[in-house]
């Protein structure tokens, strides 16, 4: 590949400052016209930076690992289960939990934009929103998994969920071996963001500090 091919970064760099100017202009206009309250904007940003995130999905998964009744309810109707079992007070509608098994590995994508279960996993990482992921996840999911260093046996079905509507998918990965008797909180520490998207597995016990 040519050394000249890295135009994207170059172009991207110049776009950023242009965009910064545009954002500043927009916010100024919207504030001056009274459409927005900048303090509410601050509060919204802070909430998405601090309140939501993969730790929430991890709590749901950990609960499913220790509580078979919750797991059954979660797989039946995730939104209802999360609130009725008291994991969280509130959960968005149409959350769908899908379970990995030795026979099936689930992977979530949104090819058309970047739909993602915000209130379970926070805002999506850049790779999830990127063209490489959106384009390849449905035609070459094992190739994508290889990009994440993940290789699954050929006996495993790869099930890709393209989030084309307002349903939001959460993968429930398999509980790692060697975690018998672990507390929900300790188990939650094994549940990575990628394991709930399907591009990773939970951490093994030996991968976390005791």
């Amino acid at each position, binding site marked *: 590949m040519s050394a000249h091919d890295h135009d994207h970064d170059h172009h991207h760099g110049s776009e950023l400052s242009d965009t910064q100017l*545009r954002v500043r202009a927009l916010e100024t206009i919207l504030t001056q016209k009274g459409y927005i309250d900048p303090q509410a904007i601050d509060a919204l940003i802070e909430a998405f930076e601090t309140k939501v995130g993969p730790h929430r999905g991890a709590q749901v998964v950990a609960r499913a690992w220790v509580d078979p009744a919750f797991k059954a309810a979660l797989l039946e109707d995730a939104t209802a289960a999360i609130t009725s079992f008291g994991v969280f007070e*509130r959960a968005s509608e149409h959350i769908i939990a899908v379970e990995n098994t030795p026979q099936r590995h689930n992977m979530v994508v949104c090819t058309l934009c970047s739909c993602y279960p915000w209130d379970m996993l926070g805002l999506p990482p850049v790779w999830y929103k990127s063209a490489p992921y959106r384009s390849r996840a449905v*035609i070459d999911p094992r190739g994508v998994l290889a990009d994440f260093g993940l290789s699954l046996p050929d006996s495993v079905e790869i099930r890709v969920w393209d989030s084309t509507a307002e349903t939001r998918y959460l993968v429930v990965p398999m509980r790692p071996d060697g975690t018998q008797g672990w507390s929900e909180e300790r188990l939650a520490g094994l549940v990575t963001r990628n394991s709930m998207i399907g591009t990773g597995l939970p951490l093994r016990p030996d991968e976390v500090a005791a």
Partner: protein
Amino acid sequence: MNGVHDMGGMHGFGAVIEEKNEPVFHAPWEGRVFALNRAMGLTGLWNLDMSRNAQERLPPHVYLASSYYERWERGLEKLLLESGLVDADELAAGRALHPAKPVARKLAAADVPGLLARGSYARPAPAPARFAVGARVRAKNINPVTHTRLPRYVRGHVGVVEAIRGCHVFPDSTTTGKGDDPHWLYTVVFDGVDLWGPQSDPTVKVSVEAWEPYLQAA
């Protein structure tokens, strides 16, 4: 519309590269854009699909060369202009030049906790669901120039209804002035080999969420 946003199955974009310890926002402006979009969405002048469509209508090379939040910024500009909340001369000047228009709701800091959960797109069903779980259905070959959520890569292919997800606002209608026009939503699963041909990975299955008007009995 058959835009570059409909990229499922395309080649040439390279490897998926993960950033370690990625921050929620990479620069303050990303957070501002995100929050401005959320806040202005409360005006009730557009919905999520109109917002998606605004981004889809960016020039294709701009769409591809822009980052996620750059697209949100461009999309918001389009929505503000098209809804008349902001005029082009204001964008050029970087300040308000005209009186504001009345809007349904203005985000207050106290509203923020309620905005962490998503809104509901379920609506009462106008009729019973036409397809049952297990039914074989063909994704129709439609190619509207307007917004649709039926990706090109499944059109014309036969899949199986795996679940019925309730009755939802229909994106193809809300974005073309036809209101919510709710329709049943199905999870339809396709064999990878049917989608991508005999050379493709036989262990792959791909599902999409498809509204009833996208489907016909097969």
